[in-house]
């Protein structure tokens, strides 16, 4: 656990040292603020004291930002060979993968914490459903774990960051859109499975304030699956045929 934390802290520091963190936070706050307060179906347009517009925007922005965070995490180590140095230290493959996962998740948490003023503002101009807001944040976090683990997996199979970025977007877009499109065309069991895999419905039910174990299992199992795949790819060097 402590090793995981040491790795996570280093990765988080390197986000801030390389400006990635600042750019991500500024663009994330800018975009989500713009669409929450100023443009489109923003809060004043809806006329309700709710953070739903923010969650709807963040749902999309995180989809694009998280692959940009995760793309270099393992791919860069593969390219420069530092993965060899790291894994011959007294750490396990799991500690490395989980450390990197935690670093990404922490950065997302920091970005989300910085949107708390939105919440305070909305709360001061109307009656907010506080439970729904916290559930919305929880939904964003759960969704982030899914994208981070997909991103880490994509990053672990290549030494090229661009490939990792595009691949994680490609996998992510299935959960974002493609499964729901396919589900609407299929019937029976296949349709149900595809519908279950679609992230939108799970995210919306969580962010409306309904925390169902079905949804939690959905997010956590996909994250876990992604992490297992990433760990497998990292430890692939040990597999002998």
């Amino acid at each position: 656990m402590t090793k995981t934390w040491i790795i996570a802290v280093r990765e988080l520091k390197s986000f801030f040292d390389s400006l990635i963190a600042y750019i991500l936070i500024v663009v994330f706050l800018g975009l989500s603020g713009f669409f929450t307060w100023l443009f489109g179906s923003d809060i004043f347009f809806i006329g309700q004291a709710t953070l739903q517009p923010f969650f709807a925007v963040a749902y999309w922005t995180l989809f694009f930002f998280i692959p940009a965070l995760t793309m270099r995490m393992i791919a860069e180590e593969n390219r420069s060979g530092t993965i060899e140095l790291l894994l011959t230290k007294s750490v396990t493959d799991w500690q490395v993968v989980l450390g990197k996962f935690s670093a990404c998740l922490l950065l997302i948490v920091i970005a989300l914490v910085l949107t708390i003023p939105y919440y305070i503002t909305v709360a001061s101009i109307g009656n907010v459903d506080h439970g729904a807001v916290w559930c919305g944040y929880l939904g964003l976090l759960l969704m982030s774990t899914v994208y981070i683990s997909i991103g880490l997996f994509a990053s672990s199979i290549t030494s090229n960051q661009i490939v990792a970025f595009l691949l994680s977007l490609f996998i992510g877009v299935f959960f974002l859109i493609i499964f729901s499109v396919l589900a609407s065309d299929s019937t029976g069991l296949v349709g149900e499975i595809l519908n279950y895999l679609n992230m939108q419905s799970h995210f919306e039910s969580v962010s409306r304030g309904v925390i169902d174990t079905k949804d939690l299992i959905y997010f956590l199992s996909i994250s876990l699956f992604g992490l297992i795949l990433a760990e497998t790819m990292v430890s692939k060097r040990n597999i002998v045929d």
Partner: protein
Amino acid sequence: MNITVENLTKQYGTQKAVDDISFQVKTGEILGFLGPNGAGKTTTMKILTCFMAPNEGDVKIGDYSIHDHQDEIKTKIGYLPENNPLYYDMPVLEYLSYTANLQSVPKEKINDTIIDMVQVCGLNDEKHKKIGELSKGYRQRVGLAQAMIHNPEILIFDEPTSGLDPNQIIEIRNLIKRIGRQKTVILSTHILPEVEAICDRILIINKGKIVADGTSDTLRKQAQGEEMLRIKIEDETNKDLIFESLRSIDSVEMIDPIADTINTYMIQSKSGQSSRRAIFQLCVRKNWTLTEMTPVETKLEDIFRELTT
């Protein structure tokens, strides 16, 4: 800590990178790993450091096996990989404290060990810079420092002096010699004088197999076998007479006049015999002046070339 390598085999696809090699390294020994490119040096090192699993065979470090005790082994080994990969965006001190933490150096000792390593590796002037801003030689020192930071009992260096200037090479060699007294050191290189300068034992591998194992002296004797002498005789103009007289010495196997020189010969003795006394006495008898008699040693380069081509 002793290292025992038993029947190690590693295959990449159909190609055997390491083919059934076995050897032992004892505490306090500095083992030089020699071999042409692609001989399997780096692969062996990667297996020793638990980065890769072998197809067959085992490595025992002390009582620990690489199959069952990876965690214990990793804390006992300091490793400098080939090409010295480092995080270029990290400052030197921060990187060293990161590795110290990863290698479970106790919290209260971390500062002291870092200061120590910075001194030992001569990084004092550069310690606040980012690693990416350092020259190659200094990066190499950072690589050495991170390998030794947890005071490991075994050090494995893959080409430790590549990219260093001659002064730094000598410093690093001395450093390795000094730490090699209490620790077990394995280093790979293709700089042959380096092996002779620092290693107690040499292991030459080629195409995944060990082709020679021993100190540089024993390797030389093995390769050489017969005594070779280079002699120069003056005050005699009749070359044929010299040649015939030398040939009449019993222990001489072969005489080879060296071209472009006057009266200089290479003389190979029969195996196990020496012709030095006989040649001297011959010159005394004939009243010739012997101005040169040098035993010719086989160079390590020759041994290396002979074994690996």
